[in-house]
């Protein structure tokens, strides 16, 4: 078993969920109405839980005997492996919801497949996470429809969000040498197939929403190589401040 590859992939997934959660958490106290405030923080909490499970598994197999907190709070931007999509600022509600939908659809397909991973700890985590991401998808899917098929103003905002986000999504399915190896060993599913399945569901939804799919944009890439947008640095500065300012403390 290629431990280095597994370690790399666990961090890829953990960083994705952590950064996604971090942006959602920014909505706390600022949601469009009370019930939705609670719902968004609920999703943030679930994703944080997934991140924690993934970091803990990575920590267990890490060569330097790191802890989950070490991985989350002491790695710099160039060591983070999330796709650029999840580090983008939270934006308005339409931006948040559409981004969430893209990630939820990805997670549902991914975790469904990962339940059958040849790497048991990952299969175990996927089994737990799937229940929650199914619910997340139901929610974000519903909101995409609500925003697209109601008022002109809402339609405009979600169209704008689609224009901004669409070309960040292919990166979710990007592969590298490590991930190629994991696919070959059936530890992770075929990413090309995953992408096709994802695209199929997304196409159906976007059509139902009567949104215009943008034709051209910059295809985001770099997360797997630790090459990020400017946004991640600010996010980590905020998130990691205490651990950096007071190194070696118990909290």
């Amino acid at each position, binding site marked *: 078993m290629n431990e280095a590859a597994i370690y790399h992939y666990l961090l890829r997934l953990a960083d994705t969920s952590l950064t996604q959660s971090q942006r959602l958490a920014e909505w706390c106290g600022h949601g469009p*109405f*009370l*019930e*939705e405030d*609670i*719902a968004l923080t*609920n999703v943030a909490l679930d994703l944080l839980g997934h991140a924690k499970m993934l970091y803990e598994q990575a920590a267990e197999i890490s060569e330097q005997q790191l802890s989950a907190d070490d991985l989350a709070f002491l790695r710099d931007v160039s060591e983070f492996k999330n796709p650029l999509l999840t580090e983008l600022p939270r934006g308005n509600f339409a931006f948040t919801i559409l981004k969430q939908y893209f990630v939820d659809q990805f997670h549902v397909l991914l975790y469904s497949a990962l339940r059958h991973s040849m790497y048991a700890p990952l299969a175990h985590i996927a089994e737990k996470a799937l229940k929650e991401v199914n619910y997340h998808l139901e929610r974000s899917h*519903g909101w995409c429809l*609500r925003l697209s098929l109601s008022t002109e103003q809402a339609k405009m905002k979600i169209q704008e969000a689609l224009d901004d986000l669409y070309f960040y999504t292919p990166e979710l399915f990007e592969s590298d040498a490590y991930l190629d190896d994991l696919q070959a060993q059936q530890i992770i599913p075929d990413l090309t197939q995953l992408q096709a399945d994802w695209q199929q569901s997304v196409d159906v939804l976007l059509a139902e929403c009567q949104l215009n799919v943008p034709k051209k944009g910059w295809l985001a890439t770099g997360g797997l190589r630790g090459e990020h947008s400017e946004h991640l640095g600010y996010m980590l500065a905020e998130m990691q401040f205490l651990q950096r300012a007071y190194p070696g403390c118990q909290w």
Partner: protein
Amino acid sequence: MKLYEVFIRAKSGLNHRHVGSLHAADSHMALQNARDVYTRREEGVSIWVVEASAISASNPEQAESWFDPAIDKVYRHPTFYPLDKEVDNM
């Protein structure tokens, strides 16, 4: 946004109980919001939401004529029928 009343069945075998209310645009949203607000600590296996306007309620001012007669219909209560000790577990 409409007002919805929320009823939760905490565990199978129990009735749905009224736990409170919330606001939502439709029943779908109401169900999801109810799940997020009222079952955060695994307190539910089933949720009902009902638009508050759809609920009919008895009038508290008529309580006497509606509910009091049973007080003297004592023979409806099981304790009215004293049983021999041997079969008193009924």
